[in-house]
């Protein structure tokens, strides 16, 4: 088993028969899967297969239309009471939400704040850190992402790659147990993708944060992941360790997808 933690322990993320529909459009159906604490799981699959929706459900940006999502055994947005599915109070949802961080494709930095204000906002106002404490930590994180000199810059003066590094620092400043990475390099120039992936690799190596990743960077997925889930049409087609997934996928659908993404003759090579 590639999972780094005891499989008998409570999974940090668990989907139980989750359904998500937008009107008549069913995006996820009868979805069951779990992520163990400390695991790095990458979701791959064609666009529209529901990968990003999964991250958005975990971040509570969307709510499932049926089924349950548990975070460390606790219900995220809904629980079952007397056989009925009941929404939690906003306060309860919020308590779980602080354990989860997300980095977006479009960075979503606050343009009216400086870099350091972006990073310290929630540590101060949500976690209750002192300004000095939050600032010290923010500067440390900026150092880690190689942006020591940009603390007082406004996001608009930064390149896309720099903005995404700030967004990573901002997410980490909340000390999340779960970090969601939603196509974080898709909006970047190709030559900048490497620097952002390098930082994420280092975070993966030096921390034990659980990561749920949606990416089109297959090499990165292969290097960082403990497990890869192949999605199609709102369901998991294949669940395997990265070597198996990328060298000897069991399903025809996976082979076709990987061939399309990686190009002919890529599967099976390293």
């Amino acid at each position, binding site marked *: 088993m590639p999972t780094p933690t005891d499989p008998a322990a409570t999974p940090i993320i668990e989907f139980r028969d989750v359904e998500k529909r937008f009107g008549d459009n069913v995006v996820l159906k009868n979805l069951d899967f779990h992520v163990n604490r400390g695991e790095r799981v990458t979701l791959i699959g064609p666009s529209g297969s529901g990968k990003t929706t999964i991250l958005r459900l975990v*971040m*509570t940006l969307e709510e499932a239309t049926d089924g349950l999502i548990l975070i460390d055994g606790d219900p995220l947005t809904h629980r079952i009471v007397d056989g009925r599915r009941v929404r939690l109070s906003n306060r309860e949802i919020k308590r779980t939400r602080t354990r989860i961080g997300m980095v*977006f494709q479009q960075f*979503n930095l*606050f*343009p009216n704040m400086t870099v350091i204000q972006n990073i310290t*906002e*929630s540590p101060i106002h949500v976690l209750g850190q002192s300004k000095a404490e939050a600032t010290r930590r923010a500067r440390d994180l900026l150092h880690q992402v190689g942006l020591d000199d940009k603390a007082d810059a406004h996001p608009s003066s930064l390149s896309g790659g720099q903005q995404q590094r700030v967004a990573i620092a901002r997410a980490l400043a909340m000390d999340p147990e779960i970090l969601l990475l939603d196509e974080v390099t898709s909006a970047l120039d190709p030559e900048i993708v490497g620097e952002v992936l390098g930082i994420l690799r280092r975070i993966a190596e030096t921390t034990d944060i659980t990561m749920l990743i949606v990416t089109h960077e297959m090499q990165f997925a292969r290097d960082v992941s403990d497990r890869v889930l192949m999605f199609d049409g709102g369901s998991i087609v294949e669940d395997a360790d990265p070597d198996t997934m990328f060298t000897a996928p069991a399903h025809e659908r996976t082979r076709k997808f990987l061939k399309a993404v990686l190009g002919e003759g890529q599967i099976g090579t390293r």
Partner: protein
Amino acid sequence: MQDQRDLWDWEMFFRALPPVLEGFLTVTLLVTVLGTAIAAVLGLVWAMLIRLAPQPVSGIVKWFVAFIRMTPIVVQLLFAYYAFLMVDAMTIGIVVFGIHYSTYMSEVYRAGIDAVPKGQWEATTALSMSTRRTWAAVVIPQALRATVPALGNYAISMFKDTPFLLVIGVVEMVNAAQIFGGNNFRYVEAITLAGIIFLLASYPTSVLIRRMEKRLAYAN
């Protein structure tokens, strides 16, 4: 006698200066500044109530805002003046102007709030920000950037609407000019003077707005 006088009399012009200026400073300017302040604050209150308050509050506010916007300010001034006889006319004027323009401002704020990208809201959720911080630290500052020019333009509109105050007997600048004209049988100089003061005050204000707009702007 009357028709033998010159069309323009500089002496009358300068004699009209003190009363007209007094009307400008003590009423026109005061009503505009306080009225704009009320409109700016109440406009945001309406916009936030419509957006955040539960029914029926948000519905009532929406209806109220539409009602005020669709009735003339003169009617509102007269209504408030006769409905609240114990309140002095000047206060009535300030409050009515403030409320009237707040309904226009609320539309501007609404547009500014709607213009805040979805990703910004999502980031506030991902960072577990409270509703209060979301609005105070992210949404309102970004919405305000878009509303400054409109707020300035409404301030200038309000400024130019102040002569309506004469329907409730408040002696603002134009009313003062008319009284001067009546007392001296010379209207042109005093009214011209009032017009010049309107122009002199409006122009620098519009320049100031443009400058503020520039300072608040940040490229994306």
